[in-house]
């Protein structure tokens, strides 16, 4: 399927470039509506990859790239369940999102995240599966999960360590602070910082350049230098599920859900 218009995202294939556009209010939170559509995208990606050289992931929301998992939904839907069932549902959700992330991470074409505004939590983790991150000057990256008593659960810890090393990871993970595009470029996370509103345009220009290269060579290079840290990804799911059952986490989530602010875990 070369084009798709869903409730939370759309994709379009043009001249070897697949563009996946996230578009769910308020800021592309990933939950039960987005995940099945991401699953459909991954199925389509498997068919389109042989006639493509690049994938661009971007957001249609002016608020930002993606605010991460839909924690309000996660809390609301898990609240009435017995602990065993709650744990099973959570694990199923994480397994499904990891399958999506792993598929995009390993697809044999060059992937580009075009970021504006916030890329927080699961949104940051989605950017981290891409080969290149192009960010405009409004971009901010953050792992806020520790503020809720959790760790990132969509594969962010192993992937950030793969790309940047442990010191930067510890800084972001353990302080929960956000960094801007300039800092993200300085530590090696972002490949290009561009003017406000220009991330997608520059991503397209970069994708056009990639078309000049032999597709198989680019895929071989990527496979050689970008291993998927499967063991650590599995361990991350285990730790997340263990932490989620603690009363402190459920209390943190309750406060989060009851807040009416856009990002209630931030100052």
């Amino acid at each position, binding site marked *: 399927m070369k084009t798709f218009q869903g409730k939370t995202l759309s994709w379009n294939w043009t001249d070897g470039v697949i563009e996946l556009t996230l578009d769910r209010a308020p800021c592309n939170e990933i939950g039960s509506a987005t995940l099945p559509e991401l699953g459909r995208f991954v199925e389509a990606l498997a068919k389109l990859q042989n006639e493509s050289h690049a994938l661009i992931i971007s957001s249609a929301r002016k608020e930002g790239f993606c605010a991460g998992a839909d924690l309000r939904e996660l809390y609301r839907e898990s609240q009435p369940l017995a602990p065993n069932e709650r744990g099973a549902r959570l694990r199923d959700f994480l397994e499904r999102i990891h399958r999506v992330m792993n598929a995009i991470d390993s697809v044999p074409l060059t992937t580009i995240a075009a970021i504006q505004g916030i890329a927080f939590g699961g949104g940051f983790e989605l950017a981290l599966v891409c080969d290149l991150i192009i960010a405009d000057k409004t971009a901010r990256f953050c792992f806020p999960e520790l503020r809720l008593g959790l760790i990132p659960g969509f594969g962010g810890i192993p992937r950030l360590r793969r790309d940047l090393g442990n010191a930067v990871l510890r800084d972001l993970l353990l302080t929960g602070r956000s960094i801007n595009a300039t800092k993200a470029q300085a530590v090696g996370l972002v490949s290009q910082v561009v003017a406000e509103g220009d991330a997608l345009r520059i991503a397209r220009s970069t994708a056009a350049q990639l078309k000049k290269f032999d597709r198989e060579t680019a895929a071989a290079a990527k496979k050689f230098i970008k291993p998927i840290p499967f063991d650590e990804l599995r361990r991350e799911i285990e730790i997340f599920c263990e932490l989620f059952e603690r009363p402190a986490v459920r209390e943190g989530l309750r406060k989060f859900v009851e807040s009416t602010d856009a990002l209630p875990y931030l*100052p």
Partner: protein
Amino acid sequence: MSTLQDTTNEVLALASTHFKVPREQLTPDDDFFKKLGINSLQALDLLTRIEQHFHIELPDYELQGVSDFRTLAERIQSRL
């Protein structure tokens, strides 16, 4: 070296321009959430613009509990 007053004035000017609130309506003791009508997401946008303008890094946890321009300017001043 900028004084705290210089920094405060620059922050007020920056907020005025970006959030389109007349400069003369902003004072150092104003609650910027209320005066600018912004939420925490927009406060992050302000933080990004402050970091770019002053060429500093200001961890967002340093802004926890900060809601007035004067204290914000003090936090910035300590990074200049």
